[in-house]
């Protein structure tokens, strides 16, 4: 155990290993994080009045980002199922990087919630007794705390156990306890996005969120945007590191995204029809979202951009010719991420509040503080993912292997030598 702990810290040394480009990337992220911290200090000093949120629209850009990122975290399941359940070898080789992205996304989710709280120092009140007064099982927010943390812990255990095994030149058994945890991570991934959708469903005073298709559509859209983000990141990884990612793996995931997008668009049609056609008082929010009311149209641009992105992306990824060519595939992936980011963020949270429960239209547009704090959180996420990947790559490629006794010392020296040599 002591040895394993030592090895663990030795392995972390590889995050210092990198050329000038790597350090430039870290410096760039650090700058963005600095900007975010600066903006957050302003918010901490003056309060959430620095945001554009008000009583009418009491959740805004932070919760929008949170909702999108829950989807990214859940999307690791699209790699986990083919890798472990179907034993698809090319994907099995890269599933680790998907799990690391899920870990990162959950940390970002928690950061977005923290930036949104009016009293962040009191966050411990949400813990179960005897520390806090968690309102479980009644409050859906309490459920969200449970499932998000559960999924986070699950992925940390799985990813680091698998890496531990690799680092010692061993393999893990799916029939062991870790195999059980891996299977458990599949429903856990579904649960985090389901509970997040139920969080909106549960606010029954907002008819825009009460569609029962909300949770299924959350999952469908998450299985588009999350893997799309992963595929883009994987292409960067295989360019800038020595990780081998086969085209086969990428195209297989792209095929799966195509199914997800088809389902997502179908669910969207079902939702829009069900909300629009009756034309009752409850249609007013979706009407505001798509067309505006009495010349007040600040959400219209977001939703139609999202629609255009999603449909174009679907056409590009549906056709095998454009799907299996990286230039067009990547366009489709980027469009998909933008489309779902707009639709699951500004297009879901804000119209729930506009018009508000007393019919008032408050046109919400995020302030500079909100944009910069969010940028900071995204940069933090990118930094965390960079470090996690940097930690994982030597283990994944087999460059870093621990054995017992003297070999461990050799490994340690090798890593340290590596670090010093590359820095110079």
């Amino acid at each position, binding site marked *: 155990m002591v040895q394993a702990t030592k090895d663990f810290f030795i392995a972390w040394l590889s995050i210092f290993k990198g050329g000038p480009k790597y350090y430039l990337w870290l410096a760039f992220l650090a700058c963005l994080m600095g900007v975010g911290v600066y903006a957050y200090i302003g918010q901490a000093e003056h309060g959430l009045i620095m945001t554009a949120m008000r009583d009418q629209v009491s959740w805004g850009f932070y919760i929008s980002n949170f909702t999108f990122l829950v989807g990214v975290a859940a999307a690791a399941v699209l790699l986990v199922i083919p890798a472990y359940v179907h034993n698809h070898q090319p994907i099995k080789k890269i599933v680790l990087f998907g799990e690391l992205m899920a870990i990162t996304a959950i940390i970002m989710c928690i950061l977005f919630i923290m930036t949104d709280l009016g009293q962040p120092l009191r966050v411990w009140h949400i813990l179960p007794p005897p520390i806090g*007064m968690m309102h479980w099982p009644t409050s859906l*927010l309490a459920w969200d705390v449970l499932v998000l943390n559960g999924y986070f812990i699950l992925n940390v255990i799985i990813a680091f156990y698998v890496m531990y095994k690799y680092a010692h030149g061993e393999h893990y058994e799916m029939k062991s306890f870790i195999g059980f945890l891996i299977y458990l991570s599949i429903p856990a991934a579904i649960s985090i996005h389901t509970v997040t959708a139920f969080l909106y469903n549960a*606010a029954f005073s907002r008819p825009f969120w009460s569609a029962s298709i909300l949770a299924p559509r959350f999952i469908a859209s998450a299985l588009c945007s999350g893997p799309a983000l992963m595929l883009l990141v994987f292409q960067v990884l295989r360019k800038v590191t020595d990780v081998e990612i086969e085209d086969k793996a990428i195209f297989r995931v792209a095929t799966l995204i195509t199914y997800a997008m088809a389902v997502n668009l179908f669910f969207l049609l079902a939702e829009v029809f069900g909300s629009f056609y009756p034309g009752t008082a409850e249609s007013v929010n979706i009407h505001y979202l798509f067309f505006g009311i009495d010349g007040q149209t600040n959400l219209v641009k977001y939703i139609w951009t999202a629609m255009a992105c999603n449909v174009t992306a679907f056409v590009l990824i549906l056709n095998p010719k454009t799907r299996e060519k990286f230039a067009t595939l990547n366009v489709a992936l980027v469009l998909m991420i933008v489309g779902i980011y707009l639709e699951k963020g500004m297009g879901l949270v804000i119209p729930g*509040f506009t018009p508000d429960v*007393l*019919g008032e239209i408050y046109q919400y547009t995020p302030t500079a503080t909100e944009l910069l704090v969010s940028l900071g959180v995204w940069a933090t996420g990118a930094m965390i993912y960079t470090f996690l990947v940097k930690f994982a790559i030597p283990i994944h490629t087999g460059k870093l292997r621990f054995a017992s006794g003297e070999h461990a010392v050799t490994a340690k020296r090798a890593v340290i030598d590596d670090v010093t040599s590359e820095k110079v």
Partner: protein
Amino acid sequence: MKKTKDERRALKVNRRTLLKGTLAAAAATMLPLNRADASFSDFWESFFQKHFREMTEAEKEKVVARLEKEYEEKYKIAIKVGIEPAMPGVLFGYGLDLSRCIGCRTCEYACVAENNQSIDPQIHWIQVLRFKKEDPKFPDFEHAEKYYNAALAPQPGYFYMPIQCQQCENPACTRACPTQATWKEPDGIVTIDYNWCIGCRYCMAACPYGARHFNWGEPHRAPQDINPNTHYLGNRPRYRGVVEKCTFCIQRSRKGRYTACVEACPVGARKFGNLLDPNSEIRYMIANKRVFRLKEDLNTSPKFFYFFDFGGTR
């Protein structure tokens, strides 16, 4: 051997103390610098203050003493923080006569004078909506006007509808709260512990009546405008980053007084009383007037009744 209840409680307290230490170490690095005026031990006490319903009477009194000291330091006037519990056999209910209301907003400002809301940024617990009488879209909130000029009211062709916390028997907000910082008291008043609220605003998303208001910035109110007679669960000065709402003037009603809005209404449109008392005015009104409650289909069961009366002022 089985532990007695007291022993278990002692153990729980110890565990809590231990956790306090760990958390405090983490929190110390995040201390806001502008708290330098309050002494560190007071900050410590305030940071680890228990949920109001978890406190013993002695603990409540200690907390109230600290709060009174804190407020005196901040506002330079003596503020009394009451902790009167609900009276037995009382369930508060409210009535509002729409045919009498003239939209003058006197209630709205009386509420602000009584309940110590922030003046800047402005927080009002009562919102009065103006509806056009001939509007074919009535009763559609989207066509109501909240920002009409009250000095001109009542205008012909319009009617007015004040909305505040409906004090639901089945409140959506208390179910939403992840920390149990808001709950329904035995006398039916939905209250908030401003020292337990984390400011997540899920209750505001849940409330169908727009009755909950958030302190987006530091609440500002001139000391001479502060009402020094307060209640812990009601009109004591609030903090930045917490939610607040109408409490049927808990500091008055629990002493058998009318709420400020009832007293202020110049046309007697507002009624208040004990729903459990068959001889109360509110019970008479429910039995004899054309009564409705807002958004009844949501099953929140408000204890706030709107009614129409023939032969009203207009």
